[in-house]
């Protein structure tokens, strides 16, 4: 059977029908490149203007000097020789003939030497560098301002904290030694920090297309505009939210949270029960997360696998334990992949830690702070404080308490759920009297005090933390610190 021309064209069309067009990140990459070129052009213009200004100033100075020297100079006696005194050009008597061959060395223009004298040596000259730019930049404020965390009690990131620099201690940068501007992005908001990365990740970061990539390590602070690349999963925090990605992403600060642009591969994000808004975009596709989900970008669209909470898109929402493919045309349901790689091997991270050196933010309403410890004396008493903000139970949470109890008959940890109007409790089954030890338990396994059968759900908001002691009249409970950590479920 022979094909007609139309059939052949149709065959070709069908063969190309599955051919993808531009990747979802095409527009984003293009914008990044254009923004980079615009920034580079602005810098060039600034340098040019600064250079021109300096040149003009130098020329003015030279001109003034020339005029000053000419006018203030005493009139030489042998003024007929173009104003040059005879002593300045001594003609050696025994010099080679050729040197004398110049007919009138003194007749060369004279006013030039004074013009050169102030700027003859490079070291003495006004620096050619773009002075105005240097003067504009010695403001290290963006690097030392407090973290913009969502809550008033931002959990510390071990190894990533830097002592705040007092303004008085900030040295004015030396123009000669100041680093190039590309490594010190100005006024970029700090969004989070790298928590962990696989050795194979070869994580790289840059700020804008005009910067070259550089490797990052755990603890690296991530600022607004950070473009990140990794060949294996890299975990980082945005405030109290945990994210993990492999491929390429860009972080953008926005009101109340952050936008993560997924350029390549996959992203895990968890902002469950946090007041941090998280938007994930891939090209023109947008998804807003309130929960735990993975996002994978490919030529077919943005795949969403939602483990907890929900993801909202312009085409509809995806609820927990379900998945969908978001495209320009709509949202197509997919089978949920609970075993997605990014859901596994999550790093544990600190959600809250109370050192109890001072009263917690919500206030200690039972017990007292003494010598860096929270202390409760008496046979039926407690150390208790309020959470501020309320503490929402997250998946995989573990509570750790370092304590010492003396002459106690029973120990009980309780946390109050205002919605149920009931406490959830954990009875400490064993402890060593008078010795420091660390209690560890999962709050999700606590039971309500009313029926003793109900466990708290993920997202349950606890009002307070109470550690009760029952025992002799002189029983003593001391707590060194309390921390809430999230570990992989």
């Amino acid at each position, binding site marked *: *059977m022979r094909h007609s021309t139309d059939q052949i064209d149709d065959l*070709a069309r069908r063969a190309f029908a599955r051919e993808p067009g*531009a*990747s979802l990140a*095409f527009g984003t990459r*293009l*914008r990044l490149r254009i923004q980079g*070129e615009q920034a580079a052009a602005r810098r060039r213009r600034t340098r040019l203007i600064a250079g021109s200004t300096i040149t003009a100033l130098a020329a003015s100075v030279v001109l003034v000097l020339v005029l000053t020297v000419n006018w203030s100079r005493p009139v030489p006696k042998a003024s007929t020789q173009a104003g040059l005194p005879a002593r300045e050009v001594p003609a050696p008597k025994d010099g080679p003939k050729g040197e004398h061959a110049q007919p009138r060395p003194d007749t060369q223009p004279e006013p030039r030497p004074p013009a050169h004298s102030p700027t003859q040596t490079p070291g003495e000259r006004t620096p050619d560098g773009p002075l105005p730019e240097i003067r504009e930049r010695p403001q290290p404020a963006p690097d030392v301002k407090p973290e913009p965390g969502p809550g008033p009690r931002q959990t510390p990131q071990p190894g990533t904290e830097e002592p705040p620099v007092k303004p008085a201690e900030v040295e004015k940068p030396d123009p000669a030694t100041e680093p190039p501007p590309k490594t010190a992005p100005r006024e970029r908001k700090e969004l989070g920090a790298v928590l962990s990365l696989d050795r194979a990740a070869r994580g790289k970061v840059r700020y804008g297309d005009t910067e070259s990539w550089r490797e990052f390590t755990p603890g690296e602070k991530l600022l607004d505009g950070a473009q990140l690349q990794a060949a294996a999963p890299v975990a980082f925090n945005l405030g109290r939210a945990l994210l993990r990605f492999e491929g390429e992403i860009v972080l953008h600060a926005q009101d109340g949270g952050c936008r993560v642009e997924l350029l390549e591969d996959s992203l895990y994000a968890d902002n469950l029960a946090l007041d941090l808004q998280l938007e994930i975009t891939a090209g023109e596709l947008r998804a807003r997360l309130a929960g735990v989900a993975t996002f994978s970008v490919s030529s077919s669209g943005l795949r969403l696998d939602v483990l907890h909470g929900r993801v909202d898109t312009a085409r509809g929402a995806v609820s927990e334990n379900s998945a969908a493919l978001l495209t320009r045309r709509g949202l197509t349901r997919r089978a949920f992949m609970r075993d997605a790689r990014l859901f596994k091997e999550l790093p544990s991270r600190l959600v809250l830690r109370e050192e109890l050196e001072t009263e917690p933010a919500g206030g200690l309403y039972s017990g007292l702070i003494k010598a860096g410890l929270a202390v409760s004396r008496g046979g039926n008493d407690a150390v208790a404080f309020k959470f501020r903000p309320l503490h929402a139970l997250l998946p995989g949470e573990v509570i750790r308490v370092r304590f010492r109890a003396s002459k106690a008959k029973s120990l009980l940890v309780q946390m109050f759920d205002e919605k149920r109007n009931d406490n959830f409790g954990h009875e400490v089954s064993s402890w060593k009297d008078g010795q420091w030890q660390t209690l560890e338990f999962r709050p999700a396994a606590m039971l309500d005090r009313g029926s003793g059968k109900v466990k708290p759900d993920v997202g349950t908001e606890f009002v307070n933390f109470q550690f009760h002691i029952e025992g002799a009249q002189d029983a003593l409970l001391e707590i060194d610190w309390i921390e809430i950590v999230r570990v992989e479920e």
Partner: protein
Amino acid sequence: MPGEDDLTLLQRLHGGDLGALDALVTAYQDIVVRFARIVTLDDSAAHDAAQEAFVRLWRNPRALAGGSLRAWLCAVARNVALNDLRSARRRARRQESRPEGRATPPPQKASDREHLARVRAFIDTLPEQERAALLLYAVEGMDQSEVAQALGTTAAAVKQAVLSARRKLREKFAESS
């Protein structure tokens, strides 16, 4: 001539409106990338070339003196891609991933998808001018003058290239429907 919308967008772009560029990118990114891919046979190189075409449009929106904007974008992407392909490294990489023409299995009874994949692979073995002309003319629906603008050639040469590509496809896949 560019369409009225294109002209308006180009004028806005000339005035520094990046929203106009976004609109043009949205309208033409797919065709330019597909075309660059058929020229380079390399997805990454195709995206690079297409990006360069749009960047050049942004730098100089008046570079389009006349004719079709999409053809102009394709022409720039093609020139960029071909320049890049001249580097030996990329050529070597391309050769590795490029299916050999003679290695294409003969058409057999197979599922429609496999058949179309074979047709697609065979198109990749055609000379660059023929496969590009076929894509733009038969698949993307450009007219011959537009294709000629994109390929930097004449309408007659485009016609010849399309005919040649069709003939080869017909010979290769005559037995199958």
